[in-house]
């Protein structure tokens, strides 16, 4: 198969973060500060990414504002010709820093929302005063005029706040909201009892999103990530393995997706050892599940195999124990029935405590 160049790169600048969200998408094994790539190393990686064909750079973490050189990194990325998107909780951004980022050419900000009230948001984020600070930062973002996307992460505890989240996005002047139901990888796997939505909640969220898309057409764009344990078909994870995006960890490891380290037999190249071009086209991890040759049944003969590419490899690994298996969310997977029972069991654990992410 011919491999297209990647469109997007997620740069996990650091795993440090003031928040401790129980659904954190960082790997369970996190990078310590003294292992993080330097400013110069990141700048080189950004240039290699642009030469490879990356257009969109997502500056993420942990909390990217925990990097003191964030402004320099944005400058370097813009010089490389990349579109720069900052994915942040807002904590660590001052009015002054936002002005510096504006001058450096930052293109867009994606602000996360842990809840629509201080009580909910601060409990989920495990950070007192976080919500108030975020609202202040959102105001400064609006004053500067950065294009804004609000990323509302939803689960059983806060799904009832979805209507309010849609209002907050409009009040902040966001052009887009991402309504993201928690995906269960990494830390989130430990919190399925506490966070799994009920089937009713998942259906209600879909209904609210569908109605809001019509009502807010042209005013607020809504991207929706449904609760996939309750779906019939899996997600087209990463747009297909190794076809559109790559992820660089704080320590320079390059992954096909942020959770790929959960597949134990994969080995990952590092930007310190190999050019990004070679990693993308020749790296073992990127070629492991590219295309459709790796598939077994029921994927191999399925007419959806190039629609969803068998779903998420990490989810197949986590639930079925085989990364080459059909995503167990799929109605054609022999494990789907068990997964649905399991989902309902998780969703019934009303008193389950939150297991917060720990610091690296």
């Amino acid at each position, binding site marked *: 198969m011919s491999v297209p*160049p990647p*469109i*997007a790169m997620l740069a996990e600048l650091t795993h440090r973060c003031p928040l401790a969200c129980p659904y954190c998408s960082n790997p369970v094994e996190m990078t310590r500060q003294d292992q993080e790539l330097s400013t110069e190393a990141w700048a080189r990686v950004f240039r290699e990414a642009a*030469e*490879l*064909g990356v*257009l*969109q750079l*997502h500056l993420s973490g942990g909390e990217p504002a925990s990097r003191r050189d964030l402004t320099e990194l944005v400058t370097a990325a813009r010089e490389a*010709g990349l*579109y720069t*998107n900052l994915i942040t909780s807002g904590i660590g951004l001052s009015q002054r820093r936002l002005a510096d980022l504006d001058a450096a050419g930052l*293109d*867009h900000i*994606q602000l996360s929302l842990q809840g629509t009230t201080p009580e909910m948001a601060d409990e989920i984020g495990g950070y007192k005063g976080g919500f108030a600070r975020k609202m202040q930062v959102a105001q400064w973002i609006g004053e500067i*005029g*950065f*294009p804004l*996307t609000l990323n509302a992460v939803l689960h059983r505890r806060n799904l009832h706040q979805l209507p309010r989240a849609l209002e907050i996005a409009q009040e902040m002047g966001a*052009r*887009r909201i991402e309504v993201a139901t928690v995906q269960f990888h990494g830390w989130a796997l430990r919190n399925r009892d506490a966070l799994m939505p009920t089937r009713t909640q998942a259906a209600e969220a879909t209904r609210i999103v569908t109605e809001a898309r019509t009502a807010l*057409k*042209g005013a*607020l*764009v809504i991207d929706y990530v449904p609760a996939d344990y309750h779906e019939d078909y899996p997600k087209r994870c990463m747009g297909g393995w190794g076809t559109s995006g790559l992820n660089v960890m704080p320590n320079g490891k390059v992954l096909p997706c942020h959770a790929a380290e959960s597949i134990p037999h994969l080995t990952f190249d590092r930007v310190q050892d190999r050019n990004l071009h070679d990693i993308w086209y020749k790296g073992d991890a990127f070629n492991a599940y590219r295309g459709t040759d790796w598939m077994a049944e029921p994927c191999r003969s399925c007419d959806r195999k190039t629609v969803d590419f068998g779903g998420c490899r990490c989810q197949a690994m986590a639930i079925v124990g085989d990364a080459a298996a059909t995503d167990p969310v799929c109605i054609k997977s022999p494990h789907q029935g068990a997964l649905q029972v399991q989902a309902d069991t998780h969703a019934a654990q009303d008193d389950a405590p939150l297991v917060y992410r720990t610091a690296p």
Partner: protein
Amino acid sequence: MEITDIPALPRGVRLHHDRVRSAWVLLAPERAVTLDQVGHAILSEVDGTRSFGEITSALADRYSAPVDEIRKDSAEFLGALRNRRFLDVTP
């Protein structure tokens, strides 16, 4: 879209020449839209000053095409961008 409407690319949305794919793309928040020749021609005229009518008349002249056809295609293309919040329109 009305003849007098003035389309403009909002902050955070810009044309970019993609050297790797030899194509023009519209870069927007977390999105990249590959443009064909027609799309690129239309967006190259969008400067935040001239009206939809002026832009489409200029395109009709340049490509010796019927202005009604150009207006129909352009309105459809720009309308789709507007719905995605990649284009601002001032009456």
